[in-house]
Every structure is written in structure tokens, then in C-alpha cells.
């Protein structure tokens, strides 16, 4: 028994040692992320963005603290094993044990929701990134903000606009059972009905689906103008493989999450051309911050950023940096600065209304000749929408 108490004591000591101020001058910034478990595959896009940012800030001489001084930043990262319960524990640890100066967001909607109460309890402001749900509007504003422009209800409206502009009269809707897919469907179906777009096939499938042939055979038989796949990365890949095999010929084919990740286009070469996906950022616009981010990311990681997750994460640190430059590290001033400020980011100006991004419109990207272009909304287009023509 003494051994165990000893082990516990050692672990406490180790935690304390970790937390001890190694370099008092550095700004400690903590976050938790899914390095293992269900969401682990998604996390690198976000971690890369954070690391790139820290490196750039330090190269600039450090983080500008309220215009008074520049201090180097150091990132403290923990693995939450894809478990929101662990994220709660980690943010408590970051705040109370590690005594970090700033927090970055974890990956995923559940994790954002889970830590909201910790932020509230300690009055610690944090800018969210990779989270999206209509439920986020139920959150108490003040210590958490969401950069996303892809909340399901707005997304549904935008999707109908895109479909109508493309002349799509009938669709097949294929939905992954995971929360984001389901929530999208919930708002999309009535919007489609209201717009008079016929739903010829409506099929749900589980996250661990192995073979889509049965669903796609039905889609092929129904021959809709468009296929709306409310999919995640794994099933997006499966969709391309199987749709190509079955020979789905719809001129509009959409996959919710996946095609915006760098490796996706690489692995399919021409076959993925014409696929539409969720996203409101592309390096092809004339935003200088954007181009710089894209180039630096590609140089450091030898791959493209994820047009969704890397971008959201990057936007969150851009906002944080600007808010700290204005307000310093004091939590109350920082909260005030974030709530009221307008920030320059790679997705343009961002301002918050309550917990939400009040500016950025919902957008869509399309793979064209292996590159991702913004095709919606029209005023932000980097290329017009083109019909999908075959699988090459």
C-alpha cells in the first residue's frame, strides 16, 4: 500500500515539476487534443497549425503583449484520447496546475462543449476552432467563441442556394450517423423540400461502414442530378472508390468533410475532380495573409493544410494574437477585446456576436484540376462551379 501512495506522490511531483516555471519570461499556452482514439486522425491538421504559429511568433521575437513587450511562447500539449471527459480534466490541469497564460482549443465539437464549463468556472477566455453545431448557440457567451461559419442551419440555406444555381432538381442524400452529419441532414431536408428539390434517395449509414455498394446501386438506379454525401473523411474515400466503381454520373457530387484534407486530392488524382465540399477558404484568393499561411504550411509540413481544420485553428490563433496585442494577458481585458474587436484573418475580417462568428459566410469548395477553389458564395468565388464529368 505504501508503494501506491508513493506512486501517487511521485505522479503529483512530476505534474508539479512539469508545471514549475522553467522560463518565467515565456508565455505558456496550453491545449488538449486527440492524439489517440477515435478522432486522432483529424488532429494533426490542427496541431500543425498551432506549431507553425508558435514558430512564427517566436521568429518574430515573441508574442506582442498589450503593445508593451514581446515574449516567446511555449506550447503545452496533452492528449485527451478523443475523450471529452479527459479534455475537461486537462483544461483544469492547464489552468490550475500548469498555470498557463493562454488556452488554445481542442479538436471537435464535443470537446469544445465539455470544456466550456471549465472555462466558465475559471473565467478563462478561449477561442474555439474545430467545432460546429447549432447547440453552440446555447452556450453562455463570455469565455468561449466559435470561428466556424459552417453551422448546420446556415449550411442548409447555402447548400440550397448552390444547388439552385447549379440547376440541380433532384438529389440523393447519404448521411453518416455521426453528429455533424446528422445535424446537417436535419436542417437540409426541410430546406430542400421548401426549394422544390426532390430527394430520390435518403440513406443513413454508420461511421464504420465498410461497403457502400448497396446504397450506391440504389442511387444509380434513381439517377439524381446531385449526390449530397454528408460524410466524414473515411467514408468520403469509400464514396469515391465505390461511386467510381458503380459509375455514379450525377453532375453535382458533394462530400461534407474529407476532400479539404491535403492527402485526399493526392490519392485520387483526377478521379476526385469536380467533387464539392464544405469550406470557405482557399489560397487562390487575393488575401495576402492567406497566401503566406499556405506557403509557410506547405513548406514546413510538405503537404497542404486542411482547408477546414487547419484553417479554423489558424484563424483562432490569429484572433488570439491580435486580442493579446491589444489587451495583454489579463483575462477580463482579453475577454473584452475578443468580444468587441474585429480581427484580420485568412478568411477575412472576423467579429463575434455572442459566441458566434458574425461575419464569415458559409461557403463551399470544389476540386478543380487537383486544386480547391471557393465556388460559393459567388462574391467570394475563386472559380465558378463546374459540373462533375466522369471519374477519369
Amino acid at each position: 500500500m505504501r508503494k501506491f501512495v508513493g506512486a501517487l506522490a511521485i505522479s503529483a511531483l512530476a505534474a508539479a515539476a512539469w508545471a514549475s516555471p522553467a522560463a518565467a519570461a515565456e508565455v505558456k499556452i496550453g491545449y488538449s487534443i486527440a492524439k489517440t482514439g477515435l478522432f486522432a486522425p483529424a488532429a494533426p491538421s490542427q496541431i500543425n497549425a498551432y506549431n507553425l504559429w508558435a514558430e512564427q511568433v517566436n521568429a518574430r521575437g515573441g508574442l506582442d503583449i498589450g503593445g508593451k513587450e514581446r515574449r516567446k511562447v511555449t506550447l503545452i500539449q496533452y492528449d485527451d484520447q478523443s475523450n471529452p471527459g479527459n479534455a475537461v480534466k486537462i483544461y483544469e490541469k492547464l489552468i490550475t496546475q500548469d498555470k498557463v497564460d493562454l488556452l488554445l482549443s481542442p479538436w471537435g465539437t464535443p470537446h469544445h462543449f465539455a470544456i466550456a464549463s471549465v472555462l466558465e468556472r475559471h473565467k478563462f477566455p478561449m477561442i474555439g476552432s474545430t467545432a460546429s453545431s447549432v447547440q453552440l448557440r446555447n452556450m453562455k457567451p463570455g469565455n468561449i467563441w466559435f470561428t466556424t461559419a459552417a453551422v448546420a442551419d446556415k449550411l442548409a440555406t447555402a447548400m440550397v442556394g448552390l444547388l439552385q444555381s447549379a440547376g440541380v432538381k433532384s438529389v440523393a442524400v447519404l448521411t453518416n450517423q455521426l453528429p455533424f452529419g446528422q445535424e446537417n441532414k436535419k436542417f437540409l431536408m426541410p430546406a430542400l423540400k421548401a426549394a422544390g428539390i426532390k430527394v430520390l434517395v435518403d440513406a443513413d449509414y454508420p461511421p464504420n461502414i465498410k461497403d457502400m455498394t448497396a446504397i450506391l446501386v440504389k442511387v444509380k438506379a434513381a439517377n439524381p442530378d446531385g449526390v449530397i454525401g454528408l460524410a466524414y473523411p473515411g467514408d468520403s474515400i469509400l464514396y469515391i472508390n465505390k461511386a467510381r466503381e458503380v459509375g455514379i454520373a450525377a453532375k453535382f457530387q458533394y462530400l461534407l468533410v474529407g476532400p479539404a484534407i491535403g492527402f485526399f486530392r493526392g490519392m485520387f488524382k483526377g478521379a476526385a475532380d469536380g467533387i464539392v465540399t464544405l469550406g470557405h477558404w482557399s489560397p487562390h484568393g487575393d488575401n495576402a495573409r492567406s497566401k503566406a499561411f499556405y506557403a509557410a504550411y506547405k513548406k514546413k509540413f510538405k503537404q497542404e493544410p486542411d482547408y477546414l481544420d487547419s484553417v479554423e485553428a489558424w484563424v483562432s490563433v490569429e484572433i488570439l494574437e491580435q486580442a493579446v496585442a491589444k489587451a495583454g494577458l489579463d483575462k477580463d481585458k482579453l475577454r473584452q477585446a475578443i468580444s468587441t474587436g474585429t480581427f484580420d484573418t485568412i478568411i477575412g475580417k472576423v467579429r463575434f456576436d455572442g459566441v458566434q462568428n458574425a461575419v464569415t459566410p458559409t461557403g463551399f469548395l470544389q476540386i478543380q484540376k487537383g486544386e480547391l477553389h471557393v465556388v460559393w458564395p459567388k462574391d467570394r468565388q475563386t472559380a465558378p462551379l463546374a459540373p462533375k464529368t466522369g471519374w477519369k
Partner: protein
Amino acid sequence: MRLLTTREAVPLLLVAAIAAVLPLLGSDYYLGVGFILFGWIALAQSWTVVSGLAGYISLGHVVFAGIGGYVLVLTWGAVPVWAGALLGALAAGLFALLVGLPVLRVRGPYFVILTFGLAEFAKYVVINIENALGRFGRLILGGPPLETLYWAMAALALAGTLAVVAIRRLRLGAGLVAIREDELAADTIGVPTVRFKLFAFALSALLPGFVGALFVLRTGYFEPAQAFDPVISFTIVTMAIVGGSADARGPVFGALFLVALSELLWSNFPQVYMIVLGALLVGFVLFAPNGVAGLFERRRAAAAAPAGG
């Protein structure tokens, strides 16, 4: 008989002492660690009732925690929080009673994989129910504060430990151990095996139902794939095997050991933590099937036995 033997007093005092000391450290972090620790102790003690004493090794104990959590979110807003948690515990116990009769007829390794399959089955059923209801992850805002949850969980850990201590003294405990050793022989000397097994199974589901509800209150979020995560079942088994599952000491030792290990390792070396966990399971099954508690016993026995005796 003494009021409490050493092997009964040690786990009880240990749980009580830790519960009393952690809040003195004055940090949410320690309360959070304590909350998790007590959660594991309560789960592992419950597991011990059916798997340690009766020898029906359950690899699906997360199902009870999942049900408890699910009932809590279903009743959220409709009944007071603690009533919801209590209902969660009762629902888990009821579920165990319902499935127990057919499931407990299956023995040995088949029971092990069956419980695993049952938990996964329940998970997918809940996922489909949630989908049909149009719910995709439920947000629970405004639950009790961490201190309250901490004390509630500490009480569950103590209750679980006390339950195992008490059951071992009762006729029920003797009967369950007899079932573990030889079910046919147990039946023949008069142990009502079916009734005892069922009772133990239901009993071992109650606390996990409560723990599951508290887990959900702590994260403020319910999502079936998380609430029914099989890794939880696996961790319970590893804790009980590492600590020893013959009496109430094992789960406390096992949970303490693994929580300490995880605080040391997982946040920085998560894969290493899991590798150590897997290796520990293999090592203990092969070389120390009675766990750490068993190792103590063995050393004491060796010291007491005269040479050559």
C-alpha cells in the same frame, strides 16, 4: 469475529483517507483526478462482485455506465439531477436482471465475449435511437459543481468497497466464490446458483449506472460512442486483474496504480501508457493471477511458512 479484518479495513480506510485529503490540496486538478479515481474504484468494485467473486468475467461492464448516463440525459430537466442519476442506476440494474437470465447461462470465455458483444450491441442500439430521435450528442448545461460531483463519486467508491467487504462476509459471497470454483459442485451443496448469479449481476450493475450518470454530469455532454466506449470495460478488467479481484483490496490497489500511472504517462506519452497497460494485463494474467493483493499474500505466506513446511 473482529469488527473488521486488516484486508477489509485497508481498502475502506484508504478510500476514506484519499477522499479526505485531496480537497485539502486546494486545486480543481486534484479534485478532478480524485473524481476519476473514485469512479474507477466504484466500477472495479462492482465488477469484482460478478467477475471476481463469481468468476463470470465481464468484458462489457461499460454497458451499465452507458445506460446510467443515457437515462440521466433522457430525464434531464424532467426530474431533479440526483433522481436522474438514481434512475440511471436502477435502469442499469434492471437491464442486468432482464438480460442476466439468458446471458449467465453462458460460461467461461463465451461469457466474456458475449458481454463484450452485448455492450457493443447496446451502444449501436442507443446510437440508432438517438438518430431516430434526431439527437446528435446532447449538451447538459448547468450540472452540479465539481466539488459536489467529487463527494458523490467518493461516496460511490466507498459504497462499492463496503459492498464487496459485506458481500464477502455474507452467505451470498460464499456462494459466489463456490460458483467461481465449481458451479456444479456449488449447486449440489445447496447454493442457489441461478438466483445468486442473477442477483450479483444486477448488484454489479447498480453502481456503474450511477457512475455513468456522474461521468456525463462531469463532461456535460453525452454521445453514445463515448458513453459506451469499450476501452472503459477494458480498463476495469485490467485494474481488477492488476490489483487482484478476490476481495475489496484489489480494485482499490488496481485503480490507484493505474490512475497514478496514467497521470504520469498518458497526457504526454499516451501510446506508451496503453502499451504498458496491455503488457501489465498479459504479465499479471501469466505470472500473478491474483494481482498485487495476491503478491502481498504470497509474500506473507512465504514469510510465515517454516522452511520445508
